[in-house]
């Protein structure tokens, strides 16, 4: 199969996946027990109030029409209006989302910076003490509740030592150019503001990054052990190349390929972890938005937010598959 044909087949697969996930969200919000109208109005609402709210939310038409309206709306980028602010939800989401991206990218950087070197170390000291310690470390960070780790760091570095700000995102740049505030600081040349916003970013990024670093550590170890057994590595050894050259130029390079796919697959885990990290650090991202709207019973916003997460996951998995197909032609067979 050519790359072009693969892209077409893969796109055709993305469509039913999208429709399915959108349907899941619809089932959760509209069909599961727990009617939003009752939840919003409480037990003492009159039937008139219920009718008016149902009309406002578009819940007064037959369920299959609601479903069709909803699917059509999503494909047009229309997620409805927030009940709390009256602003279109897509607009609100796009305002919060860049902050989540900043946090997620920084956390991914931390995770790779911790995970890859530790994984390489473990593979080089395979089944020795270092290997066992690194593996234990990986198993332990995976089981620490991310919000708990965040709070302990807040206590130690924010409350007691006062090295980093306890919570928040810090000052924002004077002008918003790209939406990504960290980039904007650099673009307007405000280095002081940039440094300040980094100090706010350190703890949330480290918290989330440390938790997911275990996955990368484990994978790097596995792939490195495998590539170090390959003939070309053995050949490099027999040619008398330096150990460092063999590890970094021969083995790690090849071990990184499957890692690239893993980064894509970890996006889902990263987003989930980001929700809790954002709430812990009062970080004004999509997770904080979602949780605050759950508290306000702003159901259209909750639904819109979940739909947005679903779309991100589908888009990312699409990109990952294409990248992999490009890098490794065997996938296209």
């Amino acid at each position: 199969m050519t790359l072009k044909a693969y892209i077409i087949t893969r796109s055709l697969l993305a469509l039913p996946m999208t429709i399915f996930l959108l349907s899941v969200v619809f089932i959760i919000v509209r069909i599961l027990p727990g009617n939003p109208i009752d939840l919003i109005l409480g037990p003492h609402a009159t039937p008139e109030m219920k009718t008016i709210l149902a009309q406002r939310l578009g819940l007064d038409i037959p369920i299959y029409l609601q479903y069709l309206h909803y699917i059509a709306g999503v494909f047009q980028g229309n997620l409805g209006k927030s009940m709390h602010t009256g602003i279109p939800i897509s607009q609100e989401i796009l305002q919060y989302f860049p902050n989540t991206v900043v946090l997620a990218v920084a956390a991914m950087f931390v995770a790779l910076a911790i995970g890859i070197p530790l994984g390489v170390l473990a593979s080089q000291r395979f089944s020795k003490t270092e290997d066992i310690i690194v593996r234990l470390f990986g198993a332990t960070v995976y089981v620490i509740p991310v919000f708990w780790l965040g709070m302990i760091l807040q206590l130690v570095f924010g409350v007691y030592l006062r090295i980093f700000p306890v919570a928040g995102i810090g000052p924002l740049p004077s002008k918003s150019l790209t939406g990504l505030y960290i980039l904007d600081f650099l673009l307007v040349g405000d280095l002081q503001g940039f440094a300040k916003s980094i100090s706010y970013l350190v703890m949330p990024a480290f918290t989330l990054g440390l938790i997911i670093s275990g996955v990368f550590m484990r994978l790097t170890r596995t792939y490195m052990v495998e590539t170090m057994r390959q003939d070309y590595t053995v050949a490099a050894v027999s040619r008398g190349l330096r150990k460092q050259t063999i590890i970094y130029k021969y083995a790690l390079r090849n071990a990184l390929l499957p890692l690239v796919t893993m980064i894509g697959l970890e996006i889902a885990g990263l987003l989930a972890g980001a929700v809790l990290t954002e709430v812990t650090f009062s970080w004004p991202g999509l997770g904080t938005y979602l949780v605050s709207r759950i508290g306000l019973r702003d159901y259209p916003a909750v639904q819109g937010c979940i739909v947005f997460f679903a779309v991100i996951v589908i888009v990312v998995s699409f990109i990952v598959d294409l990248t992999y197909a490009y890098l490794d032609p065997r996938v296209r067979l």
Partner: protein
Amino acid sequence: MTTSIRKIPAIKRFLVGDVAKRMVATGIVILAFIIGLNVLAPYLTPNKPTGARADGQLFRPFQEPSKDHIMGTNDIGLDIYTRVLYGGRVPLLVATFSTLFALLLGVPLGLLSGYLGGFLDKLISLIMDSLFAFPGLILAIAITAMIGPSILNTAAAIAVIYVPVFFRVVRSQVLSIKELLYVEAAKSIGESTLSIVFRYILPNTIPGILVILSMGFADAILIEAGLSFIGLSTVVPPDASWGLDVAIGRNYLLSGSWWIITFPGIMLIFATLGFSLISEGLNDLMNPKLSE
């Protein structure tokens, strides 16, 4: 040169195999300890399960750990040590129900889908892959927010995440098992499809299921705690639950009341670590490829 490219001697192989067994054993000991604490709680503390005094009165709030209250007291004057002892019941119960639900749905679907193949298999796989790709916690948040948290509701919400995990593992195992000779033999003596799937194939997938089962327990405990943290707690104060207590402690971080979050958090980590060590160890024992 490094040992990893040389053939590893038998003694090393034994050592690595031993690590896996030790992991499982450590995990079991941790769990026995945690479950023991929860079961024996009434004998380990004179206080009520909520952490109040036996006569129902409260203690002085915000007490630092001391001889009277080895883990301190919380914001309304409940003994944290007592709450830590009793606080595992809710997460463990939720985890048990959620993995059970997921198992009962995911395993039969995986068995049938993998064995029958064809269009049905493609359809179920697509659905399961889509669910699997979605961030589990966010799905659980959405479901719990809509149906309201309770032990069974929260368990159901978490189960939705794990159905595709069971499905995928079982299905991929069935795909290789169904080609084996003994399955062929069962077919030739006229066994029915259901009998082949459940009596001949299912037993061989059990080790894989056990790995996922204990991983599911670990994740369910973490997710239940996460839901508690964002305000979708399974129980409400003054009932005790580790996740809920960590969430409550968040409000008093700035005043430096470290003990309110620290102890329930450590219990969460221990319980999760126990399950994940078992899962990891079992996985190593089953796939000795990396330990050769």
